[in-house]
């Protein structure tokens, strides 16, 4: 455990802080509350929704979001404003956490994966079968394709914003979006329900 985790982030002068309930500011401000608290309060829900849409599992989501905030807490003193809004910085940390989880999941024996249903179904889900199929198709993609699809189509980020989150060039984002769509389309088209409907 690094000593950095216990450093009071208020002592960092060049971080971009989030005012509670307010907007991002470019400079650290003298403040009476802990910046991490504001960060947590403001973005916790956003990250829960994002990670949940990608993993489909309540418990995995809570774990991954907590790991994201832990990483953010540790890294916050080193955060510098390089034109990446802090929301995107958090999304990048979350994406890395979910990618690691997805890679571990993919490396499990096939029967272990197939026996672990990743989808937490809500009573409000209109079509549980279709939802389950959609989630499995997404989770069956390589993690980088999952990431780019989810940020663009599920979170509604522009190609330029996805590029900022993932640290890729916009052209790379477009190319991977195209490949990800094609791969997911193939997976869906091969699924039993699609065959039944055709």
């Amino acid at each position, binding site marked *: 455990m690094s000593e950095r985790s216990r450093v009071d982030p208020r002592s960092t002068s060049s971080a971009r802080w989030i005012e509670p309930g307010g907007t991002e500011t470019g400079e650290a401000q003298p403040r009476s509350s802990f910046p991490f608290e504001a960060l947590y309060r403001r973005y916790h829900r956003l990250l829960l929704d994002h990670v949940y849409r990608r993993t489909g599992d309540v418990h995995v989501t809570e774990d991954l979001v907590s790991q994201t905030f832990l990483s953010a807490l540790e890294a916050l003193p080193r955060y510098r404003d390089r034109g990446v809004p802090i929301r995107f910085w958090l999304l990048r940390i979350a994406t890395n956490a979910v990618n690691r989880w997805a890679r571990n999941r993919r490396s*499990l024996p096939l029967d272990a994966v197939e026996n672990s249903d990743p989808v937490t179904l809500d009573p409000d889900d209109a079509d549980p079968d279709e939802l389950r199929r959609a989630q499995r198709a*997404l989770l069956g993609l390589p993690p980088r394709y999952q990431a780019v699809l989810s940020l663009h189509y*599920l979170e509604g980020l522009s190609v330029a914003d996805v590029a900022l989150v993932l640290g890729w060039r916009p052209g790379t984002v477009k190319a991977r979006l195209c490949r990800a769509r094609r791969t997911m389309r193939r997976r869906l088209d091969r699924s039993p329900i699609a065959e039944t409907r055709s």
Partner: protein
Amino acid sequence: MSRPDELLDSALGQLRRRSFPAAERSHHVEQRIHDRLRLHPVRGPEGRGRLLAAAVILLALAGATAAGGMEKLRQWLVAVEVLHDDGSVSEGRVTEVHTGEDGATNMEIEAGEGARARIRVTPPELSPEGLKRVEVEILEGQPTVRGFAVGIGTPEEPVSPTPNEGDDR
């Protein structure tokens, strides 16, 4: 639009409309925790045995796997709360943190009213499944104990880290 495209757009639409279930986060203990910047509560022993990651964060922050972990834990720990069936909450405390021979981290919680629990966190690299494994075991329990909340956050008086104090590197 071709049928495969329709399937894809429909699937993405299904996923896009999802949001994290509010019911999972509506519990008043969780709200109390959020109110004071606690992260997630630990729920157990209701059966799912899933640690909602406060303890993981707590343990990680505490450096509980290394010497001096308990001291760090004391610095970061805000509270341990015990949730009872009737909705009441009582205070508890962490009594022990240690790393087992197998590399898993164990934290014991004294929950008051005779209840004690052990939270055991096995990191992904050590668990057979390759996933983080969290187990909540009730050592002594009252039938009314439904769960525990372990909180971290900003101490009322900010911690002023002393260089090298407790540094386990």
